């Protein structure tokens, strides 16, 4: 009996999130780490006006740093006792695994970004209201979907490889550069940093949506051959 892709995806996502809830690695280590990064940015820049101006970029940089840790972790639990191989041997549809792991990563990233944006409001004194909130939420959803897809894709590729801790950032950073550029510009518009208007942010969100669609599709097509060893 073969399960449908959506059932596999739900099972994989639920399993990943349950592991994170119980192990508390994200809540006790990754979230404090990203909060610390936001404080370190303030130390390095040491100027309230500059911080307010570049807050959007700092939030997304901190997200990328934490993305590496999260991706590393989500595949460490799979390769640790050969779980990924077992799934493959059992004939589980790789597209289901890809969607499931992407969804779990998406949820974890959203929690992380919520903490980072609260930190930006509290520590960097940014303001966001009205139409800015709509732009910000849409931007976060599109950017996070893109990050979750590429994170799962490249995480699956490097899972189990020698030197994956150093290889993953090398592969992933150039790929997520468009997300950093577009999400930062859209977030700056939502914050109205440096006199930009909210309306100027929407074209960037469009690119983020295209990015998520391209890598979502790319992942569905290629994930199977990446994890098959």
């Amino acid at each position: 009996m073969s399960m449908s892709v959506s059932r596999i995806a739900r099972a994989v996502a639920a399993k990943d999130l349950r592991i994170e809830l119980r192990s508390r690695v994200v809540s006790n280590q990754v979230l404090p780490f990203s909060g610390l990064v936001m404080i370190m940015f303030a130390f390095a820049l040491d100027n309230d006006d500059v911080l307010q101006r570049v807050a959007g970029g700092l939030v997304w940089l901190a997200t990328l740093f934490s993305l590496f840790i999260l991706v590393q972790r989500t595949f460490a639990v799979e390769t640790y006792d050969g779980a990924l191989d077992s799934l493959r041997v059992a004939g589980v549809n790789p597209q289901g695994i890809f969607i499931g792991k992407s969804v779990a990563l998406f949820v974890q990233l959203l929690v992380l970004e919520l903490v980072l944006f609260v930190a930006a409001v509290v520590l960097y004194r940014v303001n966001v209201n009205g139409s800015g909130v709509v732009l910000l939420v849409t931007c976060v959803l599109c950017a996070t979907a893109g990050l979750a897809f590429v994170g799962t894709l490249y995480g699956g590729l490097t899972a189990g490889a020698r030197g994956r801790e150093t290889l993953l950032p090398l592969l992933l950073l150039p790929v997520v550069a468009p997300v950093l550029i577009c999400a930062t510009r859209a977030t700056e518009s939502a914050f109205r940093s440096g006199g930009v208007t909210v309306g100027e942010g929407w074209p960037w969100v469009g690119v983020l949506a295209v990015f998520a669609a391209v890598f979502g599709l790319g992942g569905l097509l290629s994930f199977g051959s990446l994890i098959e060893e």
Partner: protein
Amino acid sequence: MSTEAQTFKGVGTPATRMYGLMAIVALGWVLLGGLIFTPEDAVQGDAVRIMYVHVPTAWIAYLAFIVTGVASACWMIGRKHSLGFDRVAGASAEVGVVFMAMTLLSGSLWGRITWGTFWVWDPRLTTTAFMFVTYIGYLAVRGLGGTAQQRARRSSVIALLAVLEIPLVHFSVVMWRSLHQRATVLSPDGDIKMDGLMLFTLLFGVFGFSVLFAWLVSHRQRIMAMQDARQTSALDVAVAERLKEAQA
């Protein structure tokens, strides 16, 4: 060891020797033409001579990555998953990374002389830098180990994802610059009035470097084929030895 020496016959053929010679002659002409025969530029002076290396290496770097993408797609589409395509993809990416490093180096030196700065956040420069890093990552993936077929599968996916990634990077950088930096950058080749000999030397440089590229890639992929064959034969030898041990 002696058997290895016997099987090693080199990687050159009459054809590669011929276009190796063509590359030497062409690049020799570019050296003379670029440094001595061509006049200096009215605006840039002697600095314009960097062009004879910079433009051909940039062209080869982009060509190399196109070859890598096409060869990877051929590996993936082909029913037999022929490792020949994978080796061409890998060899081409290696040569491409070297040429792209030369492009970035010669470009930043040229930029320092003509623009007064090593680097500007121009879309073309930024995308080139990202391609460079992306293909360094591609080569790292090729070095992950495993069998030749595993290497081919992984690296073909990475190469095709890079084909998706590069236009997205380029597009977002173009958008970033067009909205943020209104000052226009002096284009390195937009406002140069080129005389006939300069243009000829430049085109001849493109030709010479193209032949050099073909020469390097064909040798490199043959060396890879030998390495793959050696890995397979080493495995066969080990299996035979274990069998002998078991029978003894």
